[in-house]
C-alpha cells in the first residue's frame, strides 16, 4: 500500500507549457500546451528530433529557463512563482543536472567540482564528497584537474556532482552524447544504479532509443507536445 501511495506522489508536473524564441525578430514556437507528469522515483526518457525542444523542456524543469505560459511544479514548488533567489536555492537543493558537455568548473579539481553544490549551498561535507567519488570510482583522481580527465571520467564527475546535495530529482541532458558507445554504456549504468539505489526521480533527454528503453516511461516530443511512446515499459 505504502509503496503504491509513494509512487503516486508527483515529482514533476508540467501543465499547458508554451515556450517561444525570437530569431531575427521572428517568433518561433518550440513548445505548445505541453503536459507532463512524472511520479516520484520514476525514470523517464524524452526523445525527439534535433531542435524539437527536448533541452528546452529540461531547462524549464531545472529552473534554468522559464516557460512563457503554463504551470511548472517540481518537487512541490511552483517554479514560475519563485524569485531568482528561491530559484537558485531550488537548483541547488532540489535537483541535480548532468549535461552532455559535462559543464564542469574547469579551474576546480574533481573533488572541488563534486563539493561545489554543497559549498554554494553553504554546507560542505567531505565525507559525502569522498563517498560519492568512491561510488563513481574516481577517488584516485580527487585532486586532479578536470581538464585532464577522459570524457567518461568527466561525466562520472558530473554524475557525482549532481548527487552532491542528495536531490530528489536528477535531470540528464544527453549524458552519453559526447562519449563512445562502451563508455556511454558504463556511464549510463552507473547513473541508473545510483539513482535506483537512492530511489531518485530521473529525467533523461536522449537520441538513443536503446537508452530510452531502459526507462520506466519514454516520451516523444512531437508537434511541440510530449506523447507517451508505444514501447512504454
Amino acid at each position, binding site marked *: 500500500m505504502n509503496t503504491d501511495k509513494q509512487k503516486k506522489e508527483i515529482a514533476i508536473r508540467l501543465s499547458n507549457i508554451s515556450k517561444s524564441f525570437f530569431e531575427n525578430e521572428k517568433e518561433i514556437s518550440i513548445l505548445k500546451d505541453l503536459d507532463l507528469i512524472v511520479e516520484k522515483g520514476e525514470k523517464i526518457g524524452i526523445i525527439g528530433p534535433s531542435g524539437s525542444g527536448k*533541452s528546452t523542456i529540461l531547462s524549464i524543469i*531545472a529552473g534554468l*529557463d522559464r516557460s512563457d505560459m503554463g504551470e511548472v511544479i517540481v518537487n512541490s514548488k511552483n517554479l514560475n512563482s519563485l524569485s531568482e*533567489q528561491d530559484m*537558485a536555492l531550488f537548483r*541547488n537543493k532540489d535537483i541535480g543536472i548532468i549535461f552532455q558537455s559535462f*559543464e564542469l*568548473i574547469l579551474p576546480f579539481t574533481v573533488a572541488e567540482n563534486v563539493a561545489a553544490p554543497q559549498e554554494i*549551498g553553504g554546507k560542505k561535507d567531505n565525507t559525502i564528497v569522498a563517498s560519492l567519488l568512491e561510488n563513481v570510482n574516481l577517488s584516485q583522481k580527487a585532486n586532479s584537474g578536470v581538464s585532464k580527465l577522459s570524457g567518461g571520467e568527466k561525466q562520472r564527475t558530473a554524475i557525482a556532482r549532481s548527487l552532491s546535495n542528495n536531490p530528489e530529482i536528477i535531470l540528464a541532458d*544527453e549524458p552519453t552524447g559526447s562519449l563512445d558507445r562502451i563508455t556511454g554504456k558504463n556511464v549510463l549504468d552507473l547513473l541508473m544504479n545510483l539513482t535506483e539505489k537512492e530511489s531518485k526521480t530521473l529525467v533523461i533527454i536522449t537520441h538513443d532509443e536503446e537508452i530510452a528503453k531502459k526507462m520506466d516511461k519514454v516520451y516523444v516530443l512531437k508537434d511541440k507536445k510530449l506523447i507517451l511512446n508505444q514501447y512504454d515499459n
Partner: protein
Amino acid sequence: MIIKFSLKILHKEKEKLFLPFSSILLTSCVVVLSYFLISSTSVYLSKRDKEFIGGDVSIESSKNFDINTYFPESEIKNLSSQINFQGLISRNDNATGVNFTFVDKNFPLYGNLVLKSGVYDYPNDNDIYVDENLEQSLNLKIGDNLKFNDRIFLVKGIVTQNPESLLSGFSFSPKVILAQEAITYSQIDLELFKKEYRTKAIVKNELTKDAKNSLRELARKNGARANFEGGGESGVQFALELVKNFLLVVILVIIILALVNIYSSVSFLAERLRRSFAILMSLGSRTRDIYKILIFVNSFVILAAILFGTILACVLNSWIISIVKNNFQINLRHDFDLTQTILIFLLIYATSLIATLPVMNKLKSLSPKELLINAKNKESNIYRNIFKDILLGIFPVTLISIYFLDSFFYGILIVGLIIITYALVMLFYSYIIGALYKIRAVFPFVIKLLITQKKFDGFLGLVTFVSLFVALAAVFNLSLLRTAIDQYLREDLRENIPSVYVLDLQKSQIENFKNLYPDSTLFPNVRSRLISIDGLDIQKELEKEKPKLDREFGREFNLTYRNNLIGGEEVVEGNFEKIKKGEVSLEQDFAKRLGAKLGSIIIVNIQGISLETKVTSIRKVDTRSGLPFFFLVFSPEDLKQYPNTSFGYLNIPSGDIGDVSKKLASDFPNVSLIDTGKISRIAEDVIGLLLVIILIITIPPIVLSTLLIINIIIIMSKDRKRDGARLVALGKTKKYLRNFFIFESIITLLLSSLAAYVFALLVANFLVIKFIEIKKMVYFDLVSFYIFISLLCAILIVSFFVWAKGTGSIRDNLNYEDNN
C-alpha cells in the same frame, strides 16, 4: 575561393569584428595623434629654443670679438650682433633695473618682434623699445621720455612678443631694446658696466655634434661661450629641456601601451574567427588557405581601422591645435609630414600583422575537432608558443622603439627593459597565485573561486595582469613625474628666493651700500680659470679628443671668499669654519665631477697670477634654491687683494622695492636691481604654459590604458559568462555572478594598481633624480589617485555593461547550446 570566403566571413561575422576594429581604430588614432602632438611640441620647443638663443649659434663674451674667428664668412647665412648689460632707467622719480640690449639692423634673426601697436623697425639713436613689464612698472606709453645716464630717450614701441624671451612673451627682468648707435648717444662709460657681447648666426649647413664641440672648445679658449639649441645651461633652457625629456618618457609609454593594445585586439580578433576557420578546416581547407583568409580578414579590419584612426587623429589634431592656440597662445601647427605619417601607418599595420602570427601558430597546432570544442592547448605546446610569441613580438616593438627614440641603442635598451619588466612581474604574479592556490581550501567559496580562476587563466591571465600593470605603471609614472616637475617649478623654486638681487656693485661702493642696507648679503666675485687638480693640467687635458674631465672646466669660474656658511649650505666633509689662507671649499657635485677629494691640490689663475690651494671641505648646496651659490669658496686672505665686483641680495618688503630702486638709481647708477617677485610671477606663467603642454601629451596614454583595460574585460567576459552559467546551474543567482565578475575586475585592478604604483614610485623617483635632475622625491600624487578612481568607475561601468549585454538565458552560455 580565399577572397570569396574572406568576404563572407567579413559580412557574416561583422558584429564580432566590431570590437577589435574599434579598439585598433582608437589605438591608431591615439598613436598618430600623439605623434602629431609630440612632434609639433618638439618642433615648437626647438623653435622657441632657437629664438631664445637668437640664432643657430650664439657666441657670447665679455670682450668684443671677431665672428670670423669662429666661422669663415662662406658658412654664414646671416649675422646679428648685440651688446647687453644691466642698468637702471628712470622716468620722473621712478627708477627700475632693466636689461639693455643694443641691437644691429639684422635683429632678430629668428622670429618676429611683435609690438602692441605698429611694426618694429630699426630704432633711431634716441629711440627705445620697452617690454610690457617696464610699461606697467613705469606706466609708460609711446612717445614718453625715459632717462638713462641723464640722456633722454623716446619710447618708440611696446614689445609684446620678443623671440629671445621664452615662449615669446616673457623675460625675467624688464627689457629695453635700442640701436647700437644709442651707446654713443647715451654718453655712458662702457667700462663701468658688466657687459656682454653677443653675436648670433644662422649657418648655411646644420651644425653637427662635432662642429658644436669644436666651436665650444674654440670659444672656451678665447674666453667666450658658444650656445646652441638643445644645449643651453640657463634656467629657461633647463625648463625647455625638462619638457623635452618628459616628451621622451611619454613616447616610451605610448609605444608600450599601443603595442599591448594592438596585440590584445588582434589576438581577440583572430580568436573570434577560430570557429569559422575550424569549420573550413573540417571541410577540407588547407592550413595555408586558412592563413591566407586570416591575413586577408585581419588586414581588411586592421587597415580600415588604422585609416579611420589616422583620419580621426588628423581632425582631432587640428581641433586641439586651435584650442591650444586660442586659449594659451601656443602655436603647435607645423608642416604636415606625409612621409612620416605613412611610415607610422605602415608600422602600426606591420605590428598588427605580426601580432597575428602567434594566433596562426596556435591554429597550426590545433585539429578542427579541438577548434570546434574550444579545447585548450596541451601544456607542452603552451610554453613553446609563448617563446615564439615573445620572439615575434620583440621585432615590431624594437622597430617602433628605435624609430620613435631615433636611437638604435636606446631602442634596444628600452625593449630589453620592457621584456625584463614583463618577465619579473609575470614571475611575481605566478608565484603569488601559486602560493594562494596551494592554501585555497582555507578561503570562502568566492575567494577560492577567484584564486582557482586566476590560476586556471594561465598565460592569458598572466599577460592580462602584466599588461594592466604596465599600462597603470606607465600612466602613474607620467603622473608622478608631472607632479614632481610641477612641485619643483611651483613651490621649491621660490622657497628661499630673496626679494631682490643686487648686481655689479663695485668694491669702492660696498661700504656706502652696507651703510644704507646693513641687512644685505653680498658676495665678492673674482673671475678665474682652473689650472690644475692634483698635478693634472686641466687646460691641456681638455685639448685631448676624449678628455677625462667635462669641457665645462675650461670656462671661467666666479670665485668668492668668506668664512661663514650661507642658507642652503651644509658641510658634508672636512671643516669649513676656520678656512685659512691656502685652503678652498668645493661644492659636492663640482668636486665629484672634477675628481677632487679632501687634501686635493687645486691651482687657479687669477689675472695671470697662480694661486695654489688645498681642498679642506666639501659643501652641499641647493643649486636651484634661488640663493647665490659658488662652486669654489676661498679664504678672504687669498682673494681680498684682487679686483672684484659684488653680487648679493636683499630681503625687503615688496612695497619698499620702488624706493630702493630710486635710491640706487641716484647713488649707484651702474648697479642693477632685480625684483624676484616679478620673476616668480612670470616664471609661474611660463610654468603654467609648459604644464599645459605636459597635460596635453599625458592624455593619450591615459586613453590608451583605459582602452586596454576595457579590452581585457571584454576578452575575459566570454569565459567568465560560461563559468558563471555552470555555477547558476548549481544554485548561484545571475546577480551573484554579475557581482562576482565586477568584484574580480576590481580586485584585478586593485592588485595591479598597487603593484604598479609601487613600481611607478621607484621608476619616477629614479627618473626625477637621474634623468630630469630634480633633487626632489615624490611619494604621493593626487592625479594618480584621480586616474585610479576614473579607471575604477570606467571598469565598473564597462563590467556592468559587458555582463548585462548578451547575457540572455543561462542556457545560451552553456556549451550544449553554443552556436558561437
